[in-house]
């Protein structure tokens, strides 16, 4: 029996691995083309990425710094997508979380650990609150959550900026690029792991989230229900799952994690809330969840890759003539390649080939 099962699973695993390898190879080829298009040796640029991300402890520290938000926003997306909620508003929820953490961080001084915890919790709650709107609209009025969350992203960026202006009062600058809350107290800062880098203890928060989410799905009744609701809503409802409650809780959990992501960014890296700081971190999370096929540990792996690419691309930009946006573009292409249904393409090719054979046999008759 076990032999049989092994035989059955193996081709699937092989196929998945093959798919990621194929996607990676194709993306590397395209990257090389894009890099040479910019008048640079591809091998030089690519090695610059690797060196810049993993070459020394300083590089590794900064890779960790970029891996943290990737994991957290990726998990926010996974929680939502796994249960069929298309929360595209992670970016907005993240802004609200970051703002809350920034404010709690500078407004009161608390004992170090307590201060960090209060900041993180505040961040989570703000992210959660901001996801209430699309959740309610979807639940009671069937408004497609993709569009509402997209719109709320734009609103969140503007509103947090407005709040920052309020917080800063008259001292607020006119230039929106320089708008920021006062620096947070040292007690709220996440400890740096590798000196001289931005790699911080936020990584432990991120790992904890991954493990908790994994455990919930694997071992709890709630996790079982969350998965079933995502895969077949009607079935779960008939089966006695309180779908409305589950649905809202998914949205809220996703928003909570997104908020934490924003909070960790402020506490670990920026030390204050800066308006428009994120540069699509929320969208990175969405891509990562898609590439990782909503698997928590997959998110961890892909986030490390993303962290390497992000950190490495900055190094690449410094040492070569290549623009680091090349890498952002490549990441999006990676998503496209991984989510293609290769079996369908293979089937299509086979069909075409098969058809030709059939037509021939028809003539023979």
């Amino acid at each position, binding site marked *: 029996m076990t032999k049989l*099962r092994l035989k059955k699973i193996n081709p699937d695993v092989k196929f998945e691995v093959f798919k990621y390898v194929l996607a990676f190879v194709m993306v590397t080829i395209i990257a090389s083309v894009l890099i040479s298009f910019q008048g640079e040796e591809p091998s030089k640029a690519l090695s610059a990425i690797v060196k810049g991300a993993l070459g020394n402890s300083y590089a590794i520290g900064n890779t960790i710094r970029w891996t943290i938000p990737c994991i957290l926003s990726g998990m926010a997306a996974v929680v939502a997508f796994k249960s069929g909620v298309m929360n595209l508003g992670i970016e907005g929820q993240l802004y609200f979380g970051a703002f809350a953490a920034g404010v709690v961080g500078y407004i009161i001084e608390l004992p170090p650990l307590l201060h960090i915890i209060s900041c993180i919790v505040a961040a989570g709650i703000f992210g959660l609150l901001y996801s209430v709107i699309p959740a309610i609209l979807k639940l009671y009025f069937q408004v497609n959550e993709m569009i509402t969350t997209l719109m709320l992203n734009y609103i969140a960026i503007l509103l947090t900026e407005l709040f920052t202006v309020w917080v800063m009062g008259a001292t607020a600058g006119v230039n929106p690029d320089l708008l920021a809350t006062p620096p947070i107290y040292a007690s709220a800062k996440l400890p740096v792991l590798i000196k001289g880098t931005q790699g911080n203890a936020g990584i432990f928060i991120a790992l904890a989230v991954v493990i908790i989410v994994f455990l919930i799905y694997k071992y709890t009744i709630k996790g079982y229900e969350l998965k*079933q609701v995502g895969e077949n809503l009607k079935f779960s409802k008939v089966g006695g799952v309180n779908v409305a409650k589950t649905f809202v809780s998914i949205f809220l959990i996703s928003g909570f994690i997104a908020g934490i992501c924003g909070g960790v960014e402020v506490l670990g890296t920026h030390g204050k809330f800066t308006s428009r700081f994120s540069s699509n971190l929320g969208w990175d999370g969405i891509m990562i969840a898609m590439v990782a096929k909503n698997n928590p540990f997959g998110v961890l792996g892909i986030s490390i890759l993303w962290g390497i690419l992000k950190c490495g691309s900055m190094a690449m930009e410094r040492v070569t003539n290549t623009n680091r946006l090349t890498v952002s573009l490549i990441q999006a292409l990676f998503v496209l390649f991984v989510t293609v249904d290769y079996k369908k393409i293979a089937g299509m090719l086979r069909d075409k080939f098969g058809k030709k054979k059939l037509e021939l046999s028809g003539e023979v008759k």
Partner: protein
Amino acid sequence: MENMENVLEIINVSKVFGSLVANNKINMTVKKGTVHSIIGENGAGKSTLMNIIAGIYKPDGGEIKVKGKTVHFKNPNNASDCGIGMVHQEFMLFDDLTVLDNVMMGRERTKTGIFIDKKKTRAEIQEICDKYNFNIPLDSVVKDLPVAILQQVEIVKVLYRGADIIILDEPTAVLTPQGIEGLFNALRFLISKGKTIILITHKLGEVMEISDYITVLKDGQVTGNVLPSEVDEEKLAGLMVGREVLLNAQHIEKEIGDEVLKVTDLVVQDKDGIERVKGLNLTVHAGEVVGIAGVAGSGQKELVEALYGLNPPVAGSITYKGEDITHASCRDHRCKGIGYVPQDRLGAGANRESSIWENCIMGYHVAHGFKNKLLLDRKEAGEFTGEVIKDFAVKTPSQESKVRTLSGGNVQKMIVGREFLQKNDLLIIEDPTRGIDIGAIEFIWQKILQLAAQGVAVLLVSHELNEVMELSDRIEVIYDGKLTYAGAYRELTEQQIGLLMMGGKAVDKTQIKKD
């Protein structure tokens, strides 16, 4: 009949889907102006063959001749150009469009080659309706029309496309006995006008009644090309399944207990706000199977949704063992011991993407729970799943297999097993045997009767009149959102019940008692 023209010849036609041989060297000849029935069990390859003839599938081998000429259909348009039209089992209609739009779709008459000429198209369609005695409202939106009319729309659609050979796939499944009679009259009329009919069905009585020729399929092969005069129903059934079976449930005598479910003056609206259940009363007792028969769309869907808390009623009350559950949720129903086998097997009954054990504990995890309220007890889940697999003969390599790898009959056995083994006191069962093979039907029927014999109250809602008649201790007919009493087991004939399904007058109850 011998010297009639062969309008359609099928020679050695085969079709393979993956590893399944759906059609294996099929041969048959259809003569002009006849009704040619094709019979066989579900999965025998009838629909595949018809889809090949209608140009929807391409055959993997063999030859098709229409009026003596070999044809190669690339798409349904080619077939329809050759005068072949098909009325599908599931109607191929566009819900939000009018009848007129539906009929002309794909064959619009145009002004200056660009714009639709509605006037001209309408006149042509009206002419066809008049010629063949169809009375259909051309400007109504399809979703507002009853099934019998939709079937006529489908036939008119085919005629508008100039079909001489009309294929009807299981046309009687959705009709009442009277509706079937009407359809058959229409078919006879069409034949008198020179059309040819190919009728696919698995109902033997109908076959004997209307066919001129019969082709029997089994496992993708032809097992007989016969004339109705040469055979009887038993013999046909033998050809269909390879053994002599006629479906009869073993009715068990038992005690009827206390009232379990009581529905009073129930009013339910559908999602468009239209009243579908209009003041309905119903009781079900312990140990009793109450069958609800009716034409599709008479309100049974909304009734069941209301009974199971999927769509709260706008008026009336539902009590279960004396407790009001009118506005209880599905979860409450589960916890109180009410089970539900939904009609929509893969939509509401199972999750194709999950494993068998995950499917089996759905509902169980709410109603019975596990030792720990938070954690999933995989051992207990495995035990219950094992029980379902064993008691209900679900064929699967392991509990971890995904449900999408199971056949329809096995999925249904799994769902029924899950609901039946949870020690529920009331079961609401909707179309439990739709589209599954005869072996599985017999099995599920037996299980339902055994369950009732153990004192469980069963409410059976089915579109198969035969099923309701075989299983129910008491039959109710639903028509236009209201119930009419239709006698106890074997009290009324199929014809009498059929009349009630059409909204005929209620049978005089005193009369029944006298009989």
